[in-house]
């Protein structure tokens, strides 16, 4: 039976507040701290608190158990601000040495939206934040599939990372096997694995390795409605451990299994699927160089938060095609609302930039289109 490389991901986005035309120039607090605090409190109670307790128990009882932990930058911010106890629980998991931290961009950015130098800066920033908050420095990238895997691998390598775990999101080809170690770079064999989401019924299958990603936030919350809780995860892990299946951290897997094939250089498709997303992305990208040149930290932080992939996810128009009732109430009751708030926030950011006197205003804001 092939070994399992389990990656547990935890992410809570920076949430924009509804922001209208008349807020531009009037308020610069784009982020709904109250909503984030409330949602994190729910997630902590329902998922993270019991999950960390169960994982600590498993590490205690099974010396062979190991996994990796991808805590997103936005979640790390919120843990520090609202949930210090939970942060400590994650820290003690990491301190066992058998929960390997993964590094992603500091603001969960849609790498398609920003420049390579922005990705590099955000990777360095996140590595530093993780080291300070959780006491270990990550060496493996773990996050959403980038636009160009080879170029991305080069950035990760330049930052000092030694391998990648790519989420099998919509940007990776469907026919890519999830059971092998790839080389993402033709020059240095930068080792890469692609994760399979969820927990398969059938554990023992062919291949070099089984690399699984379980999204703690959604897994736990969604399953609660189906009356299946995190105990499913615990049960699955106990079954696998009792059958003697080997658990490896990504670093262990990479040191043992050399890359056997090359990862496709380009991802399958763009995560940007409609005109609203494209427009929001273009206008955000147009601000980057001016924001970085101005260098004012609050503006840089707001800009980076706006690069978060969740904002673009909320502008997905798929949901509007059907009138079926949605399961989860979100900040915005439609993709249109999400887009409008995003555009008005960009207008305000543009205005702040102009007022900072460094550059003349460009028409990235609410100029008639």
């Amino acid at each position, binding site marked *: 039976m092939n070994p399992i490389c389990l990656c547990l991901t935890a992410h809570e986005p920076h949430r924009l507040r509804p922001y*209208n*035309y*008349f807020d531009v120039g009037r308020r610069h607090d784009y982020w709904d701290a109250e909503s984030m605090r409330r949602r994190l409190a729910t997630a902590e109670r329902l998922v993270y608190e019991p999950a960390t307790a169960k994982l600590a128990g498993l590490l205690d009882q099974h010396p062979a158990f190991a996994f990796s932990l991808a805590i997103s930058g936005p979640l790390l911010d919120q843990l520090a601000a609202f949930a210090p106890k939970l942060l400590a629980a994650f820290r003690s998991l990491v301190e066992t040495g058998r929960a390997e931290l993964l590094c992603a961009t500091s603001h969960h950015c849609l790498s398609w939206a920003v420049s390579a130098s922005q990705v590099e800066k955000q990777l360095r920033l996140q590595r530093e934040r993780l080291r300070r908050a959780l006491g270990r420095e990550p060496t493996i990238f773990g996050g959403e599939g980038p636009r160009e895997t080879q170029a991305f691998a080069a950035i990760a390598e330049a930052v000092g990372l030694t391998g990648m775990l790519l989420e099998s999101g919509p940007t990776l080809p469907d026919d890519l096997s999830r059971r092998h170690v790839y080389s993402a770079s033709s020059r240095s064999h930068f080792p890469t694995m692609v994760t399979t989401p969820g927990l398969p019924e059938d554990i023992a299958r062919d291949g070099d390795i089984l690399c699984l990603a379980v999204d703690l936030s959604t897994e736990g919350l969604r399953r609660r409605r189906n009356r299946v809780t995190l105990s499913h995860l615990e049960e699955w892990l106990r079954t696998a451990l009792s059958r003697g299946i080997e658990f490896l951290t990504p670093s262990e897997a990479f040191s043992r299994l050399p890359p056997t094939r090359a990862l496709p250089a380009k991802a399958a498709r763009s995560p940007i699927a*409609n*005109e*609203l997303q*494209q*427009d929001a992305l273009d206008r955000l990208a147009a601000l980057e160089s001016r924001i970085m040149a101005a260098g004012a930290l609050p503006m840089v932080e707001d800009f980076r938060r706006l690069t978060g992939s969740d904002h673009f996810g909320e502008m997905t*128009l798929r*949901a*509007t*095609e*059907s*009138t*079926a*009732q949605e399961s989860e109430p979100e900040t915005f*009751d*439609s993709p*249109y*609302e999400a*887009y*409008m708030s995003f*555009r*008005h926030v960009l207008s305000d950011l543009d205005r702040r930039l102009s007022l900072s006197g460094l550059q003349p205003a460009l028409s990235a804001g*609410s*100029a*008639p*289109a």
Partner: protein
Amino acid sequence: MRVLMFGWEFPPQISGGLGVACEGLVRGLLQTGTEIALVLPRHPFRKPTGRLRIVESLVEPSASPTARPAPPPVKIRRIETRLKPYPDSGVETVTFETEVVPPPSTEAPPPNYGPNLATDVLRYAERAAAIARRERFDVIHAHDWMTFLAGLEARRVSGKPLVVHVHATEFDRAGIEGNPFVRDVERQGLAGADRVIAVSRYTASLLAKNYAVPRRRIRVVHNAIDPGQGSWADRVAGEEPLVLFAGRVTRQKGPDYFVEAAARVAREIPNVRFAVAGSGDRLPAMRERVRALGLRRNILFTGFLAAPDLDRLYARADVYVMPSISEPFGLTALEALQHGTPVIVSRSAGVSEVVRNVLRVDFGNVEDLASKILSVLLFAPLRRSLSSRGRREVLRLSWRESAQRCLAVYRELLHEKGIVLPASAPRRAQDPRHALPSRP
């Protein structure tokens, strides 16, 4: 299936959504092979069309509201019938304020809502018994309170099941200041009907809350629009942006919010134009407010507009706004979408249950309304998405589908009464749009 249907408005005599909805449903039912005897107070067309026969019940000249002046309050003689819209007494004084101000233009259709509306309603009900004795039908279908008493009369003499169809309640038309006579008729109709059809889940909730109608007797059948209507054209570049309000200018339609939002929008885009197509009791106050805000150059009052003129306005407008306090359905939103015009609709509008590609506002939130108007005018990708997706979404709706749902309600009733018609009764639709709202 043979239906005895009591209607009040029917094109070309319409003053709002009721007539349009009634026609749409009749057309949809005819497509399903249903036979309909449609009873109307008066109607200029007498030509029978296939399985539809139009039966007129108030045809003598004295019944015409334009023929006899009657200053309110109107003294009316109680009509000898078993219906008791009012406590027993020989003569009742009914203070009846018209819901719809007769259109100012002479080209406008003749009103069915003259000052003698209460008299007409009772007279119409009186005729219903005779019609019901004469006609052959399986089920009775009555549209809105004006026809409820007629429906009850037909049910009394025939013993056939009665479906009352609620397109609007007095609460939607007049809020809490509604007419007690109308409320009373509504209550009688809703209590005496075998099934109640509501045009939206929103209306179903109002019926359960304000009229204590048991939810098990309510079915939701959304309005629709037939494909092929509406012409879509690209906006002409360089034209002044146009924001449209169309509907009765009554308090419940939210004209006050429209004007206040217009003022905020005009401060940001000085050349913006607003069109108000409709008339009603709030029109003088609306004009006054427009003057006070200095918006006379921005706002055009067209008066009541019917199909071809209104269609041109839909097609020309950049955004259609429906800021209603209470809107059972809101057919005009579908008409606007059919013309590819982006729509901003109040959250308390039934239409938002069937279309998703619209922007929603809480009716009193003027700043949010103004912000959304500005967003549509300023953000071209938003405008294009709302326009193309909204139009596509509306093209999927059809009156035939609504008619099928009505048929299912008829069959359900006949089944309960042990009557089997040749066609097999389809199971009730499971579409979540047509589910009733759960209790709070």
